């Protein structure tokens, strides 16, 4: 069970949405995530890089119909951090 911990890295609006999307799924293609968040490639790359550096997100390069594509997934520590952050937010509201 994850502890209730406020995480400044996750709390940024775009990064919170990235973590929420990834926590609801196993893996998501970079372009699909970009379409949902309605941000540019560079903005999403920047946020994903920050989460990757913290060990919260893992990325895998694959090919789809001959085109290279990147799949993203939330790591175990990322899942714990995200769940802990959501708990902390709920604790603040309550």
């Amino acid at each position, binding site marked *: 069970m994850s502890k209730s911990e406020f995480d400044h890295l996750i709390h940024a*609006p775009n990064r919170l949405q990235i973590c929420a999307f990834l*926590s609801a799924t*196993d893996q*998501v*293609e970079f372009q699909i995530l970009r379409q949902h968040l309605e941000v540019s490639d560079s903005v999403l790359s920047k946020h994903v890089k920050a989460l990757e550096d913290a060990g919260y997100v893992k990325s895998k390069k694959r090919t789809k119909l001959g085109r290279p594509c990147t799949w993203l997934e939330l790591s175990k520590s990322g899942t714990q951090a995200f769940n802990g952050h959501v708990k*902390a*937010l709920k*604790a*603040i*509201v309550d």
Partner: protein
Amino acid sequence: MEPNKTTENNGNISAAEAKASLESLNRINASVAKTLRPPIWFIVLMGGSFGLMTFSYSAMRHENVWALGLIGSFIAFVILVAFLLYRNRLLGIKMRLGPTSNSGMILQICQAAVFGLALIFARELSLMGYQWAAYALASFNALLMAGMLYLFPTGEWIEQGGAS
């Protein structure tokens, strides 16, 4: 403790800001659910095959035709689940099979318990001569499966009406 983590409200954010963040989480969860929600015809097929599975199991006696119905509906259900996973993968999303949060775990345990109890009661009541139970509980399971697929396609608890 890692530098970007603080306990409870040491993050110094107001309750209103925390509430806005939680609302944005609900919106993104509803958006994911909308993306992963299968088409209605597919939901009807899955609910139907699950209902048929329940009815076949209740009506099965030794080796009558409903034993074949049970095998057929089970195979159909497995193929439909595989198709759903493959469809979402083609859309660029690999679905998670297990729950990630406590609310998701509770939802899935309750769902499994209700499906299982309906299946057992349908069989037992049918064996006791109450044939209506097989029809009623098969319909119940079919409708519940369709409802769960429509409302909670990710398997996680989602506040309804969160999508913009």
